[in-house]
């Protein structure tokens, strides 16, 4: 289980937790980022800029500091588990 901002470009994972206050939680949920959702990192902006992710058919950008609050389990890990 790792924070979304540590994901590499191309990695996919299942969201297991979001540590944020209610405002941000609502906003993320409205973008489709909620527990159980599968998220993929499409790219990261240079110079520590935002990350660009896809969840379902929605694409979202967010700052790394916000991505840090989202914990994900890599899909590869999930598949490897018995």
């Amino acid at each position, binding site marked *: 289980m790792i924070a979304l901002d540590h994901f590499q470009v191309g990695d996919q994972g299942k969201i297991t937790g979001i540590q944020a206050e*209610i*405002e*941000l939680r*609502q*906003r*993320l*949920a*409205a*973008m*489709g980022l909620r527990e159980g959702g599968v998220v993929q990192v*499409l*790219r990261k*902006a*240079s*110079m*520590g*800029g*935002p990350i*660009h992710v*896809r969840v*379902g*058919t*929605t*694409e*979202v*950008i*967010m*700052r790394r500091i*916000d991505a840090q609050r989202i914990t994900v389990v890599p899909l590869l890990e999930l598949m490897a588990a018995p």
Partner: protein
Amino acid sequence: MKKIVLIGMPNTGKSTLLNRLTGAHAKVGNWPGLTVSLLSARLLVGDQMAQLIDLPGIYDLNGYSDDEQVVTTYLQTQKPDLILFMMNASQVDRQLNLLSQVTSQGIPVVMVMNMADEASALGITIKPEVLSQNLGLPMCLLSAKYGQGTAQLQKLMREGLKAQAPQALTPSKVEQAFQTGVMVPAQASHQLTERIDKVLLHPWLGLPIFFAMMLLLFEGVFAIGKPLQDGMSWLFASLRTEALEPLLSGLPAMAQGLLLDGLYNGISTVASFVPLIILFFLFLGIVEDTGYLSRAAFLMDALMSKFGMDGRSFVMLLMGFGCNVPALLGTRVIRSKGLRYLTMLTIPFSLCSARLQVFVLFIAAMFTTEQAPWVLFSLYLVSILMAMLTSVIFKKQYVNVDAFVLEIPPYRLPTLRQMVLKGWQEVRHFLSRTTRFIMLGVLLIWVLTNFPQGATAGSLETWAGQLSHWMAPLLQPLGINEQLTLALVFGFVAKEVVIGALAVIYGHEGQALIDAIVHNMDWVSAYSFMLFALIYTPCVSTIATIRNETKSWTFTALSVAWPLCVAWLISLTFYQTAMWIRLHA
């Protein structure tokens, strides 16, 4: 009149639908108790007239953002008769919670699944009958952009106005209904968008491409806009000399002055902005509707976040270099109030084309051809530095409460109809809200520069001249003499007026004016004057726009006072340092 409201997440095409249904009749207006203006229009539904209102896009009805408050306040106070719930048909999963909230308002609901064309391109299958039955809500598929499905919507609105409020649906019930009503393929992505993003959001190429595009956009707006603006001025000037002056020649000089230099000048000042605003929104429409604006935010965020702003602020700041007024109007794309105010506070520092005219004259008079570009460049640099400094200083006051989480829409082709309508709406809004304020400002300056009776208009004998005289102790340490101070007072109307004012004050024009300037000051005071003219109070049209956009006198006062203080400090520091060096070196 029955009220029908459009509710939905941002970017679901609410305004597009409103424009589609009502065309050019839509108007931006104020509502009691609401801090933002809403777009609305009358619409014939069946045999009765109804009002269709576009509410701000929201993510959650129990949310905390300003827009969400606006929508809840509106629903409570205005009690609309029907809700059109707009959904993006290609992203249904994340809009279900909002749908559940909308059904529990005690108001009839019609579901509108927009962007049906995009959904089917993604391979998404939507079964309207199944969904409608599962949810117990009337619904239709639609493409607001191209107009398919509007006939069906008309029918549903007609029925909806007579219908009862639906049963409140729980989120789980909504989810169940959609499981059987909408099929999304496992791999659904916009292939073309992905390919374009590989280039436009490229780690190294992205930023250069962004700057190139902004340059193009900027050149486009002002290459086309400047001649149009000049044409408009010519039109108004000819009307004045050909028709109004002969017509009014019978009147006493004072009345002529009031009507022509006061009122008529005010009207032509307002009119000169019309072509620029239309063009700006046409071009901003391209950037926004194609989906590039949120990508610009992605590219510029690393840099701008350090100053408390984001990439969209940067786009508006850049546009401000052409003219501050449309750039201020453009900040409306930023939905967070704190961030929007912060951006609005920085835009007046952008060296606009009106100020550029003044600087070109002064630089040509005072510096060699080799020095000139560097002097101008230094002024642009100061302009950007002041904007960033302001942002850093005020970012604690105007905190961006909304997290930077933005949707990246697929690339879309904007339609000309939409963009023209938007530009037209903005111009109408600008004219109806700011004309009075701008006229008042122009009139005030006319009075100051023409009274007391008997004084030569625009001279140091007038009230404005006396004002300059009183301000001398403040501005003398900056190397700015009384004549220049008087020109700055005129510059309040519009910055380019400074040149005309100097011509009146020195009694020369063209080369003779340049000679008079050279004769009356050295390069240090000239540069100090330019610094001051760059930073000091925004022009009256800019102030009117700030006032109208924020509806706050306090903020408007701050946006006038803060640049004044900064201008004074910067010019003082420059002038005194330069004089000290000259004395000791």
